[in-house]
């Protein structure tokens, strides 16, 4: 990583910005839906024009969970690849193809949801049946992302051929790991959509195997969250050290952490299905154990980050025990926003341990605790890091600068987000522990004390949700400023380099056959027998249900 960064051409920048545009339009649309949900759940507001709560809930989940994340991640990763290994004209054309395929899929799915033909939530559990256009749209988003993945693979391959014997640049290595994981994981949901859902939604298949479809979904559903998290880790490992004026902590350890995340993010989907019938509890337990293996790369990451902070601070001459911590660049939003994201990952990760714990899960399964959990991990840790990246990536791409005024607005945005999310996610966690369900419109159920308590927390969520929406408006404003109005100039693309005396990275870390082989072996171990069991002991299939979602 001693190499100079490659300049990004205008043509490339346009592609990366296209992904950013979809991201921020999605943020606005999805965020608005989120606001409406919290208002409805407060019991003091009803949606106009007979719009159904579950329609906006589906929009919120699909647009923020699947669209915003995937577009931002693929755009950001393309820029990392462009910076470190470069992109050829031909690759650029194929990359545009991936963008358009994903966009067409997104629009198809979005329209189907908005006209009320697909109120099935982003998990689209059978046998609720949406219009076929919804499933086809989703399939296109996945196929588009595969095209992007193969462009990335090709980019590194071409670079490797031109740089025989050199190790790949760390950011490129990380991108390839994430796209490998994404590809292996999405095979599950793509199989489910193409083989089970589409023929059944079109009426060619009369029934569907519900448990199998759910198992295939969750084979994808957990790596999905790591697909969101790894780009945040990329920023923490290679971008943040540069922003604080330091160097990489350890190239080899960063690679090792990513390899472990690749291996242990996929064979773990059963921890989302712990309370389901029809799956042997021993296999559930095995996948719980595999789930917890990600504790190791997480601890490695936490150590690396804080070691970088301390080393950098001490080198600048801060001697006292915590002096280096006080002197971190707190007034630089490129640092502050991701830092708060990291801090949120401490309670977020702890909550995740509760969720995946074989038995404790029963207390929180499908309660709004879960919603609180992923608003802390995805919507705070990941999203604040993505915002932190936006502050320098967008002006870098548009040839502008992050001005002190925009930096200040960014800091305000970060505080609004932190404040709003503390209230919203906090009250979701508490309400969940008291048994309040997730994914539910306002209801007084049979009344009584329990329900009255829940509703109080739902009012708190509406307050938090409103504050968060103000944060979204501010972020969209900053994005528009950085795109069109900020003064022209050069904004640095921060990528940290290794120490001059860094130890060489072991070659084995780039032995793709080995790591992909172990990953596949673990998946086969964790899934082969239970899936055969599920298929062999499957009950009569389920016919579709349309009227339940108001079709």
């Amino acid at each position, binding site marked *: 990583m001693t190499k100079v960064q490659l300049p990004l051409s205008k043509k490339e920048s346009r592609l990366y910005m296209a992904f950013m545009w979809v991201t921020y339009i999605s943020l606005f649309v999805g965020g608005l839906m989120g606001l409406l949900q919290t208002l409805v759940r407060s019991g003091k507001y009803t949606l106009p024009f007979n719009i159904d709560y579950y329609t906006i809930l589906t929009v919120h989940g699909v647009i923020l969970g699947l669209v915003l994340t995937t577009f931002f991640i693929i755009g950001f990763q393309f820029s990392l690849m462009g910076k470190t290994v470069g992109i050829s004209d031909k690759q650029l054309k194929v990359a545009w193809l991936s963008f358009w395929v994903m966009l067409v899929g997104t629009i198809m799915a979005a329209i189907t949801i908005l006209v009320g033909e697909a109120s099935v939530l982003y998990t689209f559990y059978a046998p609720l049946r949406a219009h076929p256009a919804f499933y086809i749209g989703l399939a296109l988003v996945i196929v588009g992302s595969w095209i992007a993945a193969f462009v990335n693979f090709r980019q590194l391959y071409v670079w490797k051929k031109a740089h025989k014997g050199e190790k790949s640049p760390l950011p490129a290595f990380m991108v390839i790991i994430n796209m490998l994981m994404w590809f292996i994981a999405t095979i599950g949901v793509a199989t489910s959509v193409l083989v089970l859902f589409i023929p059944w939604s079109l009426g060619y298949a009369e029934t569907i195997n519900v448990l199998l479809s759910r198992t295939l979904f969750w084979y994808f559903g957990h790596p999905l969250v790591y697909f969101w998290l790894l780009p945040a880790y990329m920023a923490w490992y290679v971008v943040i050290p540069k922003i604080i004026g330091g160097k990489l902590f350890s190239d080899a350890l960063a690679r090792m952490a990513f390899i472990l995340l690749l291996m242990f993010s996929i064979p773990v989907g059963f921890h989302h299905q712990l*309370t389901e019938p029809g799956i042997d509890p021993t296999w559930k337990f095995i996948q719980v154990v595999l789930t917890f293996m990600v504790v190791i790369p997480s601890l*490695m990451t936490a*150590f690396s980050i804080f070691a970088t902070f301390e080393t950098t601070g001490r080198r600048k001459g801060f001697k006292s025990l915590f002096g280096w911590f006080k002197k971190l660049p707190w007034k630089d939003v490129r640092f502050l926003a991701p830092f708060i994201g990291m801090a949120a990952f401490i309670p977020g990760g702890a909550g995740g341990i509760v969720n995946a714990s074989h038995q404790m899960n029963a207390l929180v399964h*499908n309660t709004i605790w879960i919603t609180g959990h992923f608003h802390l991990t995805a919507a705070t840790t990941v999203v604040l890091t993505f915002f932190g990246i936006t502050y320098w990536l967008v002006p870098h791409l548009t040839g502008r600068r992050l001005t002190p005024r925009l930096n200040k607005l960014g800091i305000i945005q970060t505080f609004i987000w932190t404040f709003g999310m503390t209230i919203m996610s906090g009250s979701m966690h508490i309400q969940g522990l008291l048994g309040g369900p997730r994914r*539910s419109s306002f209801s007084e159920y*049979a009344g009584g*004390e*329990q329900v009255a308590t829940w509703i109080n927390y739902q009012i708190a969520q509406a307050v938090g949700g409103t504050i968060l929406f103000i944060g979204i408006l501010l972020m969209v404003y900053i994005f528009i400023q950085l795109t069109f109005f900020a003064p022209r100039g050069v904004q640095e693309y921060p990528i940290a380099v290794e120490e001059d005396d860094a130890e060489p990275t072991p070659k084995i870390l780039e032995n793709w056959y080995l790591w992909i082989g172990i990953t596949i072996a673990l998946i086969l171990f964790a899934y082969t027998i239970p899936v055969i069991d599920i298929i062999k002991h*499957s009950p009569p299939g389920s016919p579709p249900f349309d009227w339940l979602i108001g079709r």
Partner: protein
Amino acid sequence: MHLHKYEKIWLVFGMASLVLFLLIIGFAAFWKGTHPQSHMETIDPQNVEAHDAFKPENLGIREVADGKYIVNIVASAFNYDFGKDTEGNANKTIRVPKGSTVLYQITTKDVVHGFQVAGTNVNMMVEPGHISRYEAVMKNVGEFTIVCNEYCGIGHHQMYGTVEVYE
């Protein structure tokens, strides 16, 4: 690969805690029998009445031994069927004395539902073609809301019941 001394200590401590943690949940699961609900019996979702437990006359609560109860439930959008009372009205409440052991046994006629007795450990997914079972000791007096906690359609939030535990 070089590891800093402090990082070694950190990782060894972390991994040791992890092993201890997994041993505890493994011990609880395999020796204390606290596996999550994983009942394996299947059923035809379009003909649940064929199963003895889910015949209309067998729905609701039944005392099977002193202090031991079975509750049979059929879920469908957007209702839990606990059977009928003596006047032919649909039951919405299950009443049990404090300290009784209750086996909840539930299946669905249509889509996926949830079954949670809020404030207790009774929390199961209910899926077409499968029977979900969970036995719990109802230790605390009070009214507990039963909620469907898996999205089942536009009336999902109207699907509920009550468990009343009395002295």
